[in-house]
């Protein structure tokens, strides 16, 4: 019993979220509609407390608990803070969004419960250190997000998005778990550290193809979650169909979780993956295809969310360039890129949500003319978009710079060059949005000309924009933090 109580200290942040999730569920069931107004503040409060608890408890000591399946180290703390902070911002956006949707409003308690489940799953993912934990927390992230994607029940698009996400997701899960079973079979272990030890002791990466096929099949599962081509098919359809707020969730928290899991799996579990040409080749293939397909297919898109889907595929590709090398620099390049990506993505989606809310359209056309009606928001939007292209002096630039540097150091100059060229292509479609904002007149109801934005959302957008700039102005802080978070076997 005493062992248990010590262990529990380490999962306090997760427990707090779980507590608040259940509280929300119970309150909404027993108190009912009257309580809806308080649900969002409760979730914000819960996340905030959890965030505080990360700082209060066990920030510095590295320990593995629960039969070494759960690890508290700098890596997991970094991701916990990262996930909690972005979900804090995210939840605040749900405030205003949920008012516009009847079904979300009708099942508000369940809505927040499921979102909190996703958050717990993401946090557990970053801290999990064995295959079972990885698998089950990945599912905890996915299953609620399948449901959330279909939350707009009478909207055919939303339903279809949910179905596609679900079928392909379950399929990817099946492949992933088959891969896990092969990894387990080849090494006889499920703990990532034990796997790494077995691989080193028995030199498995060179002679055991069960292991390699297992790793590749697992990578397929992860690649699906991060939306890397050619396993990206769900992404555009789901992004377009799902409610915008859920699209935001899928591109931010789910993605962070999948990347955290992938980093754990590759760097801790298959720690010598750099030595296996097959695994590296597979990663390179993924990133190459993602970068090309993502950027090219984004060009003809008219729908903002669909465009962002392809753009996120491309970003996944850029991040994967960082995976092709196994040193410290590469790993923290991935962190920095992720930080930048999440900030600018949240920002861009939040602006899009404001636009959608006023003008009831997700088309790029709906952005027309906001440069003059809402100069501040559109300046922020420019910052996010330019940052996504990877131009200085914004966060995306730093991320791309570091990732490309890692690529060049690993003799993948050709991949980096393709990356740079495709990022020029990406300029075209991002600038297209800017063009609509500034150089196109809005041809709709003139009463919808000015985008209504609550003070709170403007405040958050400002914070995100400042963050996007500050990553380049004072990168040392971010680099220091990310550097500490690097994990290895």
């Amino acid at each position, binding site marked *: 019993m005493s062992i248990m109580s010590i262990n529990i200290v380490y999962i306090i942040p997760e427990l707090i979220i779980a507590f608040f999730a259940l509280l929300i569920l119970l309150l909404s069931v027993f108190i009912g509609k009257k309580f809806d107004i308080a649900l969002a503040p409760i979730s914000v409060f819960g996340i905030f407390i959890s965030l505080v608890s990360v700082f209060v408890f066990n920030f510095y000591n590295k320990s593995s608990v629960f039969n070494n399946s759960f690890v508290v180290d700098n890596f997991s703390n970094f991701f916990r803070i990262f996930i909690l902070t972005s979900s804090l911002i995210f939840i605040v956006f749900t405030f205003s969004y949920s008012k516009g949707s009847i079904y979300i409003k009708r099942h508000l308690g369940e809505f927040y419960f499921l979102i909190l489940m996703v958050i717990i799953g993401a946090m557990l993912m970053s801290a999990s250190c064995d*295959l*079972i934990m990885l*698998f*089950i927390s990945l*599912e905890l992230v996915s*299953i609620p997000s*399948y*449901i959330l994607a*279909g939350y707009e*029940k*009478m909207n*055919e*698009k939303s*339903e*279809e*998005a*949910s*179905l*596609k996400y*679900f*079928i392909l997701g*379950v*399929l990817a*899960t*099946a492949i992933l*778990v*088959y891969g*896990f*079973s*092969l990894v*387990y*079979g080849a090494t*006889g*272990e*499920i703990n990532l550290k034990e796997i790494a030890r077995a691989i080193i002791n028995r030199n498995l990466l060179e002679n055991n193809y069960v292991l390699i096929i297992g790793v590749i099949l697992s990578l397929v599962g992860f690649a699906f979650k991060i939306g890397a081509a050619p396993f990206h098919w769900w992404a*555009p*359809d789901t992004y*377009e*169909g799902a409610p915008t707020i859920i699209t935001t969730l899928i591109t931010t928290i789910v993605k962070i979780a999948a990347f955290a899991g992938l980093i754990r799996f590759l760097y801790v579990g298959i720690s010598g993956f750099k030595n296996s040409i097959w695994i590296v080749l597979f990663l390179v293939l993924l990133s190459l295809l993602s970068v090309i397909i993502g950027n090219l297919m984004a060009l003809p*898109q008219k729908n903002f969310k*669909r465009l962002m889907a392809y753009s996120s595929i491309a970003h996944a590709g850029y991040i994967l360039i960082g995976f092709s090398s196994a040193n410290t620099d590469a790993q923290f390049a991935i962190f920095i890129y992720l930080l930048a990506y999440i900030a600018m993505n949240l920002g861009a989606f939040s602006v899009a949500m404001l636009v959608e809310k006023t003008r009831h359209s997700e088309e790029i056309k709906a952005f027309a003319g906001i440069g003059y009606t809402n100069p501040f928001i559109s300046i922020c939007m420019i910052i996010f978009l330019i940052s996504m292209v990877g131009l200085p002096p914004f966060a995306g630039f730093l991320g791309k710079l570091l990732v490309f540097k890692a690529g060049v150091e690993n003799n993948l100059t050709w991949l980096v060059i393709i990356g740079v060229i495709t990022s020029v292509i990406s300029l075209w479609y991002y600038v297209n949005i800017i063009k609509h904002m500034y150089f196109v007149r809005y041809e709709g109801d003139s009463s919808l000309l000015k985008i209504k934005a609550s003070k709170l959302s403007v405040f958050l957008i400002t914070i995100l924009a400042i963050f996007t700039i500050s990553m380049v102005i004072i990168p040392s802080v971010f680099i220091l933090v990310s550097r500490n978070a690097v994990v290895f076997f």
Partner: protein
Amino acid sequence: MQFSAGLELKLEYFLAIAAVLFGIGTYGVLTRRHVVHILLSIELMLNAVLINLIAFSAFLTPEKLTGQMFAVFVIVVAASEVGVGLAIILSIYRKRKTVDVDKINILKG
């Protein structure tokens, strides 16, 4: 309980059977048009995983039971996936009166 050991059952046989199941499941997922059919095929694939895990557990780590534990969680996940999947199917059926995946394609391009 002892088997009369005329035929020595080796690990490879179990793995091969699992691979067969996995292949059949794959085929089913790829060809069927009924969503529930696809769901059934995915169940087959997950069963292949289960056989894999338990066979590995029996042959490689008979003392630690890790594979069996893994299998339990796979079953749990499979159960919840089926539940969610059927809910999604039901709600899509209400709206469109079809569950044919070939006809569910308004989102594309």
